[in-house]
């Protein structure tokens, strides 16, 4: 069903892009080290980053080592794994939500949001050549172990069209539902109708991820993020 992929020659923009990313990543170490140290000192709570044995970022020329046989990179195209096919509506049930209504779709999509433990190699290769965090970690969003307290939480998200309030329900430390609780936008909230289900669990759909899905729905996401803060 999928076309075979003829390997095309490497191309200038792809090569340029790869070189640029490498250059920035490498420079990220030298250029941001002092700032990073300063910020690290300011934030005692931040987890210490593993100290690179040698900042030989050149040793990591490829963004991602792969478990599966991978084509040569960086000039190579993506691996031959995709299977384009026509699907009209493979998303999980995501009926248009009703503005200001109670949980519009969440209950239809209650799936554990946790990524399923996967049969990955027992110990991923520990490549400590990755550059330390760039200076911008001053905001110190070191990921804590996310412990969500059970309960119902609400948060607001702003958009230029108005604000949206999202509610999330936490049970057993997991988000079990997320829904639009208030829609104060000048238009109907149907434009974010698909999102609550996505927030709860993308696994409920037939796809792991959706591309191009979420830009217009920032308000809902911000509302969920706001609500999540309160659940911690």
């Amino acid at each position, binding site marked *: 069903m*999928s*076309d075979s992929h*003829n390997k095309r020659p490497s*191309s*200038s*923009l*792809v090569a*340029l*892009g790869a070189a*640029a*990313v490498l250059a*920035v*990543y490498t*420079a990220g170490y030298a250029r941001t080290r002092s700032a990073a140290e300063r910020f690290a000192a300011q934030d005692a709570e931040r*987890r*210490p980053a*593993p100290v690179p044995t040698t900042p030989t970022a050149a040793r990591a020329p490829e*963004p*991602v080592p*792969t478990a*599966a046989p991978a084509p040569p*990179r*960086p*000039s*190579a*195209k*993506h*691996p031959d794994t*995709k299977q*384009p*096919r026509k*699907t*009209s509506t*493979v*998303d999980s049930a995501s009926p248009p939500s009703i503005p200001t209504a109670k949980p519009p779709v969440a209950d239809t999509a209650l799936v554990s949001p946790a*990524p399923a433990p*996967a049969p*990955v190699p027992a110990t*991923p*290769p*520990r*490549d400590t050549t*990755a*550059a330390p*965090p760039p200076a*911008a970690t001053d905001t110190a*969003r070191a*990921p804590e172990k996310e412990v969500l307290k059970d309960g119902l939480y609400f948060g607001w998200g702003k958009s*230029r069209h108005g604000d949206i309030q999202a509610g999330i329900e936490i049970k057993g430390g997991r988000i079990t539902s997320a829904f639009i609780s208030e829609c104060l936008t000048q238009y109907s909230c149907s434009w974010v*109708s*698909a999102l609550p289900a996505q927030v709860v669990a993308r696994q409920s759909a037939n796809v*792991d991820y*959706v*591309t*191009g*899905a*979420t830009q217009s*729905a*920032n308000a809902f*996401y911000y509302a969920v993020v706001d609500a999540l803060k309160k659940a911690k």
Partner: protein
Amino acid sequence: MHTVAVMGTVVTITVVGLDRSGDEAERDAAIARAVGWFEHVESVCSRFDPDSELRRLCARVAEPVAASSLLFEAITFAIAVAAETDGAFDPTVGASLESLGFDRDHRTGRATPSGIPAATGARYTDVLLNPEQSTITLARPLVLDLGAVAKGLAIDLAARALAPFVNFAIDAGGDLYLAGRNGDDMPWSVGIRHPRDEGTVIETLRVSDTAVCTSGDYERWSDTTRGAHHIIDARAGVTATAAASVTVLAPSAMVADALATAAFVLGPAPGIALLERHGVDGVMLTPSLDRFATAGMRDA
């Protein structure tokens, strides 16, 4: 799963096997580094933050300005794409975007206009790059917009920080990098959303170690100009209308994102030709939902 709000969108990082026992601190540190890259790229490349390095660069005309590696590479790449498309894609459209109302931070709603008029006739050729000195000179007043480049670059940098974990996914508002395999030990499945129906997936792909980025006319609409969205045909200075969405698969998110935007501006025939010339795959949907694709993605 780790979610943060950054760069005008929500970024979700998922490392497969996150719940397994292992060196938690190391893993969390890697995720912190990945997130840190997003924040760093935003602080450097934001058009909405008057204090960003990008905005400070745009405040100086006709003099060489020393640029950080990050800003220099991002602008160099954007200019290269502009040259590839004869200026249909052009990062100097920032002032035009402002005039269409795209002048404020999505999260705060605060307007942060540059004060530079749109009609200066600026083109990408007015951005002079000096790789030896790592300086950038703007030959005339203009506002650079790295919207089609910066987020992809941040995704790529974050992917590097996460590389040791082999199997992971980065979702930055629908622009994706999918490494290794998913929780079922399969290549990741990615749905391309219907450009006119947010709840519908129009097509599904299977990918591994691939960036998947989509430029769609549904992403950001102008409040002030009827029918205008955020993708500009720089040749005419108006919203591009030949496509509704373009999805590109590439080894790098920066490449995928920029080429998706460039192909969007160019429209079906030249847009697909651009993707094929650069050896990446992509699908374009027009406003009438006609489908155009590179050879590797044409339906059998």
